[in-house]
């Protein structure tokens, strides 16, 4: 069985935990009142006003004039995320993190030791609540696809268990857009063909779907039938570290896109340093409004976990993409791969790079120890 765990309003909840005086207020993390930043996370209070993550801060303030905007303190979130992963690790080593606040756990081999998957999920929820004062939503199901929907359907503080025999009963009434890979466009096309729910898709002739959508059609049909064979890939086996964000509505503003990429670069760099691995290849992923997705990568001359180097490369790659024309963008992602555990044995003439690495690690430590963003880089979400 697979458990999908998704922290509720993670960044915002961590900030609220650190600043109890803000309890009950609409809070977002990311950007400032004057800035053009993007909401990285919104508390449930803020969501009541229609504020969602990846929305420009300016629009959020229009929706909720009393909004409290806090700066992003990535290092703090990374350290909390690490604490949460340690809790996961008590129950299984098969952990696939999707981002700082979301992970799949394959507990199939742990059930003998710790009891049924549902019990494990319940235990994890209570461990996180007791030890971190944070709430996580959990979905338990035979595969990743169903587990992810399950964790989301009853959010916040969700706990949904789908036993193997009940998968179809669970999926059938759900709208088709719940299927991974069904975006606005595919949804429209499916609706035009008379399909509204997963049940409708399941009862469609698979040949029609394949003819109409190719590979995606086959994928949709399998998921609708509750089939998802993808394994949980734990971080130890991971070949890259990545972070990505889908915007609430498509974004075309270059500054907002750069701000988000800068934040993602830092998130990836902090995770690299946390794991003490350096990578050689930096990639960006851009999904345009029409779901066309491109990736661009650059291989550096040296392995690195240096925030500046990663961010500069991301910026360069992104500006190259922009040269081909500006179109509304739906998702941006950053990843670093090409890991090498071997320390660089070649001496450096200009010590400053080495110093920069040490500075990054030191600033991570300071931020971790003192909680708030005591030290951060000049360019942040605000501009």
């Amino acid at each position: 069985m697979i458990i999908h765990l998704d922290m509720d309003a993670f960044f915002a909840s961590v900030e609220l935990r650190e600043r109890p005086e803000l309890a009950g207020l609409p809070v977002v993390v990311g950007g400032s009142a004057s800035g053009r930043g993007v909401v990285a996370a919104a508390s449930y209070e803020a969501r009541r006003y229609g504020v969602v993550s990846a929305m420009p801060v300016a629009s959020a303030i229009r929706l909720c004039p009393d909004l409290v905007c806090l700066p992003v303190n990535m290092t703090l979130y990374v350290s909390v995320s690490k604490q949460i992963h340690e809790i996961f690790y008590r129950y299984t080593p098969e952990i696939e993190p999707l981002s700082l606040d979301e992970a799949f756990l394959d507990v199939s081999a742990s059930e003998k030791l710790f009891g049924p998957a549902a019990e494990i999920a319940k235990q994890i929820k209570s461990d996180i609540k007791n030890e971190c004062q944070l709430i996580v939503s959990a979905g338990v199901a035979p595969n990743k696809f169903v587990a992810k929907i399950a964790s989301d359907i009853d959010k916040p503080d969700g706990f949904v268990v789908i036993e193997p025999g009940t998968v179809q009963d669970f999926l059938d009434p759900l709208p088709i857009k719940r299927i991974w890979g069904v975006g606005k466009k595919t949804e429209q096309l499916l609706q035009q063909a008379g399909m509204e729910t997963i049940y409708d898709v399941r009862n469609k002739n698979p040949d029609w779907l394949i003819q109409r959508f190719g590979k995606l059609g086959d994928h949709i049909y399998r998921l609708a039938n509750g089939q998802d064979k993808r394994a949980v890939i734990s971080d130890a086996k991971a070949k890259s570290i990545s972070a990505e964000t889908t915007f609430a509505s498509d974004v075309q503003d270059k500054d907002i896109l750069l701000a988000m990429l800068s934040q993602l670069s830092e998130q990836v760099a902090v995770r690299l340093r946390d794991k003490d691995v350096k990578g050689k290849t930096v990639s960006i992923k851009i999904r345009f409004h029409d779901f066309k997705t491109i990736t661009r990568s650059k291989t550096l001359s040296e392995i690195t976990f240096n925030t500046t180097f990663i961010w500069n490369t991301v910026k360069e790659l992104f500006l190259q993409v922009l040269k081909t024309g500006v179109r509304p963008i739906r998702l941006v992602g950053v990843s670093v791969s090409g890991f090498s555990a071997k320390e660089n044995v070649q001496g450096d003439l200009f010590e400053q790079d080495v110093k920069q690495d040490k500075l990054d690690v030191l600033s991570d430590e300071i931020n971790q120890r003192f909680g708030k963003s005591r030290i951060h880089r000049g360019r942040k979400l605000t501009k």
Partner: protein
Amino acid sequence: MKFKIKRETLLKPLQFVIGVVERRQTLPVLSNLLLQADTGKISLTSTDLEVELVANFDLDVQDGGEITIPARKFLDICKALPDDSELNIGFKNERVQVRSGKSRFTLATLPAAEFPLIEDIKVQMEFSVPQRQLKKLIERTHFAMAQQDVRYYLNGLLFEIKAGQLRTVATDGHRLAICEVDADITSDDHHQVIVPRKGIQELARLLEDSDEKALIQLGSNHIRIQLPDLRFTSKLIDGKFPDYNKVLPKASDKFIHAGRDTLKQALVRTSILSNEKYRGVRLTLDKQSLSIQAHNPEQEEAEEELEIDYQGEPIEIGFNVNYLLDALNAIPEEKVTISLSDSNSSCLIEPAESKDSRYVVMPMRL
């Protein structure tokens, strides 16, 4: 536009300018070259927006005009025609026609107005050096430039200009190369400009071992070099080159005097069995002897013993063998001096007699 030209007259300037025409273009006009025919003069221009090359030569032109034509196809046609052919070139109905003997080619064109020229570089200072000197400056240092380094200011060659002297410096952060020549520079100003790697590679191809002057002009964002029939213009890298003076070893107390070729050959042989990725070799120095050792992950080993002039304390130090060989290959003199201090500090390699080029290499921990 209409003119007649000998294949041989056209081929050399064409081959000069073709270098910056990249095969994959974002802008279609960049795969073209600009052909300008004026009374008594032809000029060919190519660009990749960073580097611009212009070749000029005299010719009796029947009708003047300007147009852009596909660069590689035009060169291929000229190359494929028989020796001593005469080409008749004319422009009609938006196309360029090339006729020679019984061959006829019609090439697509794009208007000359679409061709992006680097016009006025706003010259702030200029001076001349013999081509031979400029060639030397590049040949002795270019190999140490970084390639696609995130420290973008290392992906080029530093030109340092001061009264009486022109110096080039290249480094990739692991090794550094410096060369300097006397130059007729009167300005008291001290200038530093970084010319991108691509520009340096092109420039190296254009320079000849001649005493003819190369006129070097510096603008705020460009460097321009005028050669007799050629003009090279490159954008500059907007960045600050690291303070290389700080990394020149000053505390060396151990000196190796050796023949360049003997040392080079021993290193080449040893390098065969060094780690293919890290290229490490270990140098062990003792009174009058140097041993060079290498081994690889397959546990194969190579060892060379050399008798050399060495009086210092015994020392063991590791290096990337390629860095040592690059430096030795750039030194034309017979004898070299290598200065060391300890196994964690950089070494200095220079010709024993002249001190006009110097190479600094950081060691490896082996």
